[in-house]
């Protein structure tokens, strides 16, 4: 009952005790072909802070849970984890609206969450169950939600797709934009430069974001790119280089970029300097091309969740207990989702050939031998 007493004491401390909002200094962004950049100060309200904390924590725990399930062989195939990069996904979403559009590559679990997917759906998709966000048909790399176009397996292919979505935004005149993400590895793909050209020519409302986590699979940026200034690679497209571990920095830069696009000035590039704690995917231990010390250093000095937590605590915007409570809730939510993901049944075999086409009358599909005739409905 001591615990009960403590909880009562904590909740007795009214929210009027906390600072409702505070202003923080954030790192200045490097600019390319821009006169001014995003502001060097950001205002964070208590509500925002708690929401960002919770979302980042969910994301972190979800990825770690996926790691666990993968090692237990409950998740198979490819699994590219996002832990360490949470500030990017949550910060970007904070700078745009849900009516805007977003597309990314295969390290997509975080974005599926920020774009409206639930943890249950995401985890069940990873374990290949019928409750998955793509009914188990897509897996880790092919998750979709409203205004979220995946989840794309082919490196760099999502960039022209994103520009196409931006074209549709401009065509339909709804003042929406498209955020189009790719990594430092993909930044050397030819189709990205074709896309830069067309997006700039046609002034498409597209924010190109390079998530530079310093390694394209096992190749460090110095070994892959003649110019590692990814924010300048768009040449005629203005660019910003942003501290991707600081959620406020990411948010302010995204808002700045969104304003740029919405005012009809055409595309803009953001390079987010970030870091992934895991290897490229679950089959990569992640220590053959970088040192454990490096990973530890980033974890201790620049972890996005810790940074936000410290900021909030130091400015009396939340209490340790409050944040711990959020941690407990998050843990429970993840456990619950993992439970669902491991117990939900696999998709029924009748579903094998469905969804080949959209809006199509049922058709027959050849099975593995001529006598197996399967049915497909859309």
């Amino acid at each position, binding site marked *: 009952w001591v615990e009960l007493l403590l909880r009562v004491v904590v909740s007795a401390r009214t929210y009027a005790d906390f600072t409702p909002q505070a202003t923080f200094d954030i790192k200045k962004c490097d600019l390319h072909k821009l006169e001014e950049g995003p502001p060097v100060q950001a205002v964070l309200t208590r509500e925002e802070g708690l929401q960002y904390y919770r979302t980042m924590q969910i994301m972190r725990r979800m990825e770690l849970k996926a790691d666990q399930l993968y090692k237990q062989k409950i998740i198979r195939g490819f699994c590219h984890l996002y832990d360490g990069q949470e500030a990017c996904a949550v910060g970007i979403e904070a700078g745009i609206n849900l009516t805007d559009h977003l597309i990314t590559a295969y390290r997509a679990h975080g974005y599926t969450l920020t774009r409206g997917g639930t943890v249950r759906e995401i985890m069940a998709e990873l374990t290949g169950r019928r409750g998955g966000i793509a009914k188990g048909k*897509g897996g880790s790399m092919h998750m979709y939600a409203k205004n979220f176009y995946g989840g794309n397996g*082919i490196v760099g292919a999502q960039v022209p*797709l994103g520009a196409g*979505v931006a074209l549709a935004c401009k065509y339909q005149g709804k003042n929406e934009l498209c955020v189009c993400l790719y990594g430092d590895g993909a930044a050397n793909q030819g*189709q990205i430069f074709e896309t830069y050209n067309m997006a700039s020519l046609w002034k498409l409302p597209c924010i190109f974001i390079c998530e530079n986590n310093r390694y394209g699979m096992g190749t460090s940026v110095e070994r892959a790119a003649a110019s590692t200034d990814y924010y300048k690679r768009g040449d005629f497209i203005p660019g910003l280089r942003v501290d991707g571990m600081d959620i406020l920095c990411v948010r302010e830069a995204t808002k700045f970029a969104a304003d740029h696009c919405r005012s009809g000035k055409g595309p803009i590039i953001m390079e987010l300097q970030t870091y992934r704690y895991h290897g490229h995917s679950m089959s990569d231990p992640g220590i053959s091309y970088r040192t454990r010390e490096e990973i530890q250093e980033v974890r201790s000095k620049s972890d996005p969740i810790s940074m936000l937590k410290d900021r909030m605590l130091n400015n009396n915007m939340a209490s340790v207990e409050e944040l711990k409570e959020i941690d407990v809730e998050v843990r429970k939510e993840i456990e619950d989702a993992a439970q669902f993901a491991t117990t939900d049944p696999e998709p029924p075999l009748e579903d094998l050939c469905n969804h*080949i086409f959209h809006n199509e009358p049922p058709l027959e599909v050849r099975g593995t031998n001529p006598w197996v005739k399967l049915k497909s409905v*859309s």
Partner: protein
Amino acid sequence: MDKIRNEQIRGTVKVEQFGDKAREARLRWFGRVLRRNRGYIGQRMLEMELPGRRRRGRPQRRFMDVVKVDMEMVGVKVEEAVDRARWRQMIHCDFQLLQVTVRDALNQAMDEELERDERVFLLGEEVAQYDGAYKVSRGLWKKYGDKRIIDTPISEMGFAGIAVGAAMAGLRPICEFMTFNFSMQAIDQVINSAAKTCYMSAGLQAVPIVFRGPNGASAGVAAQHSQCFAAWYGHCPGLKVVSPWNSEDARGLLKSAIRDDNPVVVLENELMYGVAFEVSEQGLSKDFTIPIGKAKVERPGNHVTLVSHSRMVGHCLDAAAVLAKEGIECEVINLRTIRPLDVETIEASVVKTNHLITVEGGWPQFGVGAEICARIMEGPAFNYLDAPVIRVTGVDIPMPYAKILEDNSTPQIKDIIFSVKKTLNM
């Protein structure tokens, strides 16, 4: 200045050529006169010689001179005037049958679909201000402007991806490849981003896109510009692949493709663009569509089935005409769609004729003909075959340049005739 052919104007308002209509009127009157009694003054006037001397110069053309020429043109004889109904039928000039080139058919189809649905737009190299590399999109940019007809830089992978992204976000793009040879640069976007997405997203994300352009051999363009991609695209689930032959096919299939909510590859043929075909009144209607996945029997026959797609259908019909003189009646099937393949129509034909020959312009290995052979073997029609299926295909080499070599690299009519006689053991 906009070039609209007279035939098109007449076609749209459904008016015959004046000269044709006047001829019909002349012959109608002529027939009426002939059917009257012998003594009827009209009849006497036809042959009458006027007294007196004619003026100097060429003798004037008289009514009978004109009518004789008319009758030759229409193909009737004086004796046939006795049967009024038949006479009327034979001299009637039909405005409904309009001659339309494949190019114009595609152009009109796109024009009508652009008008019908705001979300439809065309992008590709030279489609706007140049009027299309092969003039298929002539006049469209002038009519619809920059927003709907977009010239792209030479970036196939880039603009194909952009087109797919636009389709994902709710528009209905037509992505033109100058030829399908260049689509190889962009094939990842066609297959991985367009074809597979509906399945990977369990139906959440549709991709209503059309990829179109000329496919297969042209004339003298050599190896890198002459490949047929029917087998490559026909291999992939999630994609629909159509291959029109004549103008009606082109109109109907392109319209169906644009109205389809799924990725469709339309394999046109550059050599067919300038060829004119008669299109029925029904074929000219704005809502005329041909269902994707249905083949057409272009010519019925009893002795052997010829299955083909695109330009080779014409070759099959020509071969059939030659063979008919020797008493061999070929049934010619125009596939129209490569994927999904209409095996039922082929099977029904084989059950009737017992002999099957596939004719295609592409290479033999893993080709359209190979697939048809496999399917026929797996189905009920196998028991009705009196001989193995024969594939007539392009020669298994990269396309050479020299005319004599090029001519011998794709199936000729004599190859089809030879194969028919082989299978019929003649």
